[in-house]
């Protein structure tokens, strides 16, 4: 420790962090800790594993063609599983580990911190779609050429649409829940229960109101399996409402 150096009185900077800088830092926060890295690598690893599995089945069945859409389906499953967790981490990590003390002291305009996290959640969807499409193309081309199969893009648009919808819906609904609860474990448990249990139980409700309350309705209608009414209702219930609660909490909560 240098004992002679005392800080000079002239502050080094005079400008507050811009929204772009805050978004960049949100990405940096996510990728410099094990939880964020684990989710990202798990998604990629699972995607590759499923791709190789699908390819192995096709070879076993002596198929002559390897479709890009089949490989992309594997990555779509990963996106559906992983994006809600990433969305949750964006909003809850700072509160869970109390980094928020430093963050709000450095940038007291809390609405900008909230907005930066929202933009980050959307960009996570964009980044993952781009990464999965690039990986899917490389893997499908690589496997097709390695095993002497013909590469085809048949049905790809439908699967790509599904990937985009599930990525955005997943990251936004995860982020919304995380912003409202500000707790990583609680948010993750609720997402799992919601997908595995609550969505199915809601279908048992009389009068056909279940789809209006299901989380899945949001993405189902966009991929051609539901009405716009149920999608909007689901979006309001599982994205807008939790974000509204989260915004109020962000403005009022006092970090300890």
């Amino acid at each position, binding site marked *: *420790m*240098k*004992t*002679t*150096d*005392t*800080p*000079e*009185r*002239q*502050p*080094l*900077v*005079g*400008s*507050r*962090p811009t929204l772009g*800088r*805050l978004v*960049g*830092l949100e990405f*940096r*926060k996510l990728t*410099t*800790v*094990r*939880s964020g890295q684990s989710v990202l690598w798990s998604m990629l690893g699972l995607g590759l594993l499923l791709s190789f599995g699908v390819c192995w089945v096709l070879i076993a069945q002596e198929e002559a063609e390897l479709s890009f859409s089949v490989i992309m389906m594997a990555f779509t499953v990963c996106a559906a599983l992983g994006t809600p967790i990433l969305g949750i981490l964006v909003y809850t*990590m700072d509160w869970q*580990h*109390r*980094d928020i*003390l*430093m*963050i*709000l*002291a*450095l*940038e*007291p*305009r809390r609405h900008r911190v909230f907005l930066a996290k929202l933009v980050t959640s959307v960009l996570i969807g964009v980044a993952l779609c781009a990464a999965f499409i690039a990986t899917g193309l490389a893997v499908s081309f690589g496997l097709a050429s390695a095993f002497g199969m013909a590469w085809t893009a048949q049905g790809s648009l439908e699967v790509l649409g599904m990937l985009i919808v599930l990525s955005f819906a997943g990251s936004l609904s995860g982020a919304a829940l995380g912003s409202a609860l500000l707790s990583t474990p609680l948010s993750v448990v609720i997402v799992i229960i919601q997908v595995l249990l609550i969505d199915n139980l809601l279908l048992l409700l009389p009068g056909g109101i279940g789809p209006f309350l299901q989380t899945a309705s949001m993405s189902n209608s966009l991929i051609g399996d539901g009405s716009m009414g149920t999608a909007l209702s689901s979006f309001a219930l599982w994205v807008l409402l939790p974000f509204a609660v989260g915004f109020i909490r962000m403005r*009022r909560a*006092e*970090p*300890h």
Partner: protein
Amino acid sequence: MHIQVSSVSKHYGKAHILKEISCSIPAGQITGLLGPNGSGKSTLMRMVLGLGTPDSGSILYDGVRYSDLPNPGAAVGSLLDAAARHPGRNVRDSFSLAAGMLGISNSRRDEVIEQMGLESVAKRRFKSLSLGMRQRVGLGIAILGRPRCLILDEPVNGLDIEAISWLRGLLTGFAQDGGSVLVSSHLLQELQSYAHRVVIIDRGSVATESTLSDLSNPDSQVSVEADEPEKLAKLLLAHGFAVSDHAVPGWLKVQASNRQVAQIAMEHRILITSLGSQQEHQLEEAYLRLTQGEYSVHRTEVL
């Protein structure tokens, strides 16, 4: 930069944590914040940093609210809790995060990491650091933007002797250069070694705000060792000061200030070989007198 806290009150549910607190943290001075556990020190510090909103009252930096400062993070460096950092992020990334928010270059980040003696642990995850190292990380981040104010909650917790000495030098130099410092501590002697003034709060109210010298009891005792103790004792008695025997032969206990004793001895050419003010005990006495809080430890035998 002058920080003025005016009539700040804060409730959490039915608990009245801060009651009309008013105090100032002047530029160029180190202000110590003292108070028993649960007295509201940390709540006050959070309010000063805009992390909590007072129910009433205001906290202004040269007349401006914290959130309205041009770049609050660069103007005010803070350390509230050394443990409040992601345990899985490494030291360099923790600094990078703060530097990124402040818009500070990586060269300044590396300079502070080196200054804090953290180069060897820069790639280690925060959870693997000792309390002292965590404290260094927090202090390093506090000074990253070369702020004009420092708000530090228990900064010497866990620091080794070298680091405490460094911190003392840093804060003294910082105040000499015109910076404002608010530092809370439970270590009275440590605080006494560098603070210019203290604010003592008890049960959410300011018990006293004064300079350290004003807080000292003018009638308190000093211990004196002189070549001619009997002669000095007679002179002091003649000047109206109470003199009593000391436990150590050749020493006197006098109800006077250091200056008064030294002046009389000098006028009569008596050599004083040791003159011990008991200022640290005086601060402790003043602190205990002023803070008979609801959480005070009862001095009964518990073991």
